């Protein structure tokens, strides 16, 4: 004992006692929902600055909400990207395909065909809108809810399901959690479960592209909760310091598993405003408005291609479903939150816009929903021919030891031989 009192407690002074603030979300299970505290500006309220404008001149954009689709389903205001009808309908179909995929694979997990799944329901516009605005050659460093990039770039969905099932045609040899895709040829960086590690990596990729005089840019995504991670700030520091052609996306879906966004600092400011300290543009965007997502991404991409550096986009959205198949949101949030989310559902909003424009109708929507559901069902059946998790139709054991290093060192060779020996004993032919 050193005789010092390290037990804390009140000091001897007569100064008023301090209190510790613990954030508390506005609603809990059973509570009524009132979103009147959210400021939702009209779509034409925020003017689109020129891409070459100084970051300091657009600080307000970090506190506003860039929107294109108004309450009457019209595309209005200076951010309207004026997309052609074909593109609008392709976006609609891509979002519908993702939702059908998520629903079907979620059920597959419940049926025991895989260990884990994560839906992006309600957030489809975030990744799909961005991918439509990026070039096909740009490199994406996603987090785990941006499978929309793969749908938008026409990655084979059978292959996605093979990965989810960890079966014998899983391109990742059953090494990764389901949904942790990797697709270099599709500009999709290998997913990590550790949060925001992709942020400095994306900055580094963009730096490399710039240093080689390339024209490709990088984009990366993280959730609002993980903006608390050091790597989020490391990525922004590198992006800002080296003027890297990189788009930093924060998907503010209001929840980090069960913790609401207040635990990432949303009580004081927006996530887009994180950009201000770095001297880069920060744009807060209605993440359920795919035209706004497209427009903001296109703006940031143009800026990056003009060698004007990185942009931070906050996509303001709502995680309509659970965090993952291991999560039960009814245990921590009001059941009414989802229904009353004032920015609606991204698919519904684009659908209504297309119908009001006269390029779409309910009958065609229903036909398309059926068609994408059948497409997913057919892909699932095909994938199941290659096995499901734990079914035995998985990779040979030696694949476990491959790709740890380029060449297998002696200790892995020995362990590989052991695994093959054990397998023959456990499951004799």
């Amino acid at each position: 004992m050193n005789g010092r009192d390290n037990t804390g407690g009140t000091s001897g002074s007569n100064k008023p006692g301090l209190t510790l603030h613990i954030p508390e979300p506005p609603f809990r299970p059973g509570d009524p929902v009132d979103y009147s505290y959210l400021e939702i500006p009209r779509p034409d309220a925020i003017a689109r600055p020129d891409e070459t404008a100084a970051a300091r001149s657009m600080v307000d954009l970090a506190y506003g909400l860039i929107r294109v689709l108004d309450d009457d389903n019209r595309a209005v205001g200076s951010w309207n990207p004026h997309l052609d009808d074909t593109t609008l309908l392709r976006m609609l179909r891509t979002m519908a395909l993702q939702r059908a995929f998520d629903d079907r694979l979620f059920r597959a997990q419940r049926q025991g065909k895989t260990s884990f799944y994560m839906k992006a329901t309600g957030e489809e516009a975030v990744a799909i809108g961005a991918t439509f605005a990026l070039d096909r050659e740009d490199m994406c460093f996603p987090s785990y809810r941006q499978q929309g990039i793969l749908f938008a770039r026409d990655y084979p969905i059978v292959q996605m399901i093979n990965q989810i099932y960890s079966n014998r045609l899983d391109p990742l040899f059953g090494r990764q959690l389901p949904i942790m895709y990797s697709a270099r040829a599709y500009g999709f960086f290998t997913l990590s479960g550790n949060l925001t590690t992709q942020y400095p990596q994306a900055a580094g990729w963009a730096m490399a592209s710039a240093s080689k005089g390339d024209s490709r840019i990088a984009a990366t995504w993280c959730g609002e909760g993980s903006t608390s991670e050091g790597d989020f700030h490391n990525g922004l520091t590198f992006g800002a310091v080296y003027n890297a052609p990189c788009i930093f996306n924060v998907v503010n879906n209001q929840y980090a598993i069960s913790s609401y966004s207040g635990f990432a600092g949303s009580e004081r400011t927006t996530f887009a405003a994180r950009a201000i300290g770095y001297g880069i543009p920060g744009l807060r965007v209605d993440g359920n408005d795919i035209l706004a997502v497209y427009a903001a991404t296109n703006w940031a991409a143009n800026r990056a291609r003009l060698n004007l550096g990185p942009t931070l986009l906050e996509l303001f959205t709502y995680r309509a479903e659970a965090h993952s198949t291991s999560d039960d949101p009814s245990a921590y949030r009001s059941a009414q939150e989802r229904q009353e989310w004032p920015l609606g559902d991204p698919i519904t909003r684009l659908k209504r816009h297309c119908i009001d424009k006269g390029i779409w109708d309910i009958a065609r929507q229903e036909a398309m929903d059926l068609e994408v559901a059948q497409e997913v069902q057919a892909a699932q059946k095909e994938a199941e021919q290659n096995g499901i998790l734990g079914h035995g139709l998985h990779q040979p054991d030696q694949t476990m030891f491959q790709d740890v290093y380029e060449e297998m060192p002696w200790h892995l060779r020995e362990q590989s031989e052991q695994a093959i020996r054990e397998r023959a004993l456990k499951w004799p032919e």
Partner: protein
Amino acid sequence: MSMIQALNSALDVMMARDDRVVVLGEDVGYFGGVFRVTAGLQTKFGKQRCFDTPITECGIIGAAIGMAAYGLRPVPEIQFADYIYPGLDQIISEAARIRYRSAADFICPLTIRVPFGGGIFGGQTHSQSPESLFTHVTGIKTVIPSNPHDAKGLLIAAMEDNDPVIFMEPKRCYNGPFDGYYDRPAKSWADHPDADVDEGYFRVPLGQARIVREGGDLTILAYGTMVHVAHKVIDEHGIDGELIDLRSLVPLDIATIEASVRKTGRCLIVHEATRTSGFGAELSALVQERCFYHLEAPIERVTGFDTPYPHSLEWSYFPGPIRIGEALDRLMRE
């Protein structure tokens, strides 16, 4: 040339041969690094190829991973091994696994240079030997030279390797071999045979140990600074010891170790890092598993103590000639 000059020469040769090689880190650009290993590279190859970074180790390593994913071959410097801990997540969860988790869709050819070890009055935060943190991580290689020739050849091999390599430089040997006698005048590399280093390109392959001194009485396994200390002690004790410089811990040259211990029947493992769960524990287990019936004495480990690296008492901490000599005597009595 000195080890610093040899390392500089390796970087120079590779930057000239391969325009994908990029050097980055705190102070490495204009200033040429606090130990001068990167001196002159920015002037010669330009700021795009050799540049300073913000002070964030996980940012440096994370950005380097992204550069490697793009197709460059980055060589980040972490100023002291003691500062690498904030970068561990990027090393362990990312660099080490990218090839595996992507089924070689993406690879991570990264060489992280990091000075390590004590003996320079660097206190707790400039003296540590964290190599076993890296050897425990599968997917990365851990390489430690002990002299200028190997430093250059191994660094070139590391830069050409398609896997991430932690390249640990024993900074006590930067300017001369250190024999463990802290109170003697510092030696220079000038007259050392391993300091006669070719100016051009050559490789020392990873995963091949070097028998520094052949002998029949006992085997000493060492790396980095401890190679020189052990060498001196063997000579002083007049023991016919076989000294093996491991040069790379992962991949490990088990064949050379096994052959030597089977021949001598005795094994002493020497490292500067703290004892508990140090790399010596792994070496000891391997030797026991593979050479047990050839052993004539228990395997001994001589290591640093299990304390943080003390500033004023560093020569009491350091596993010097007395600690090694006592272990040698114990082993030879058996």
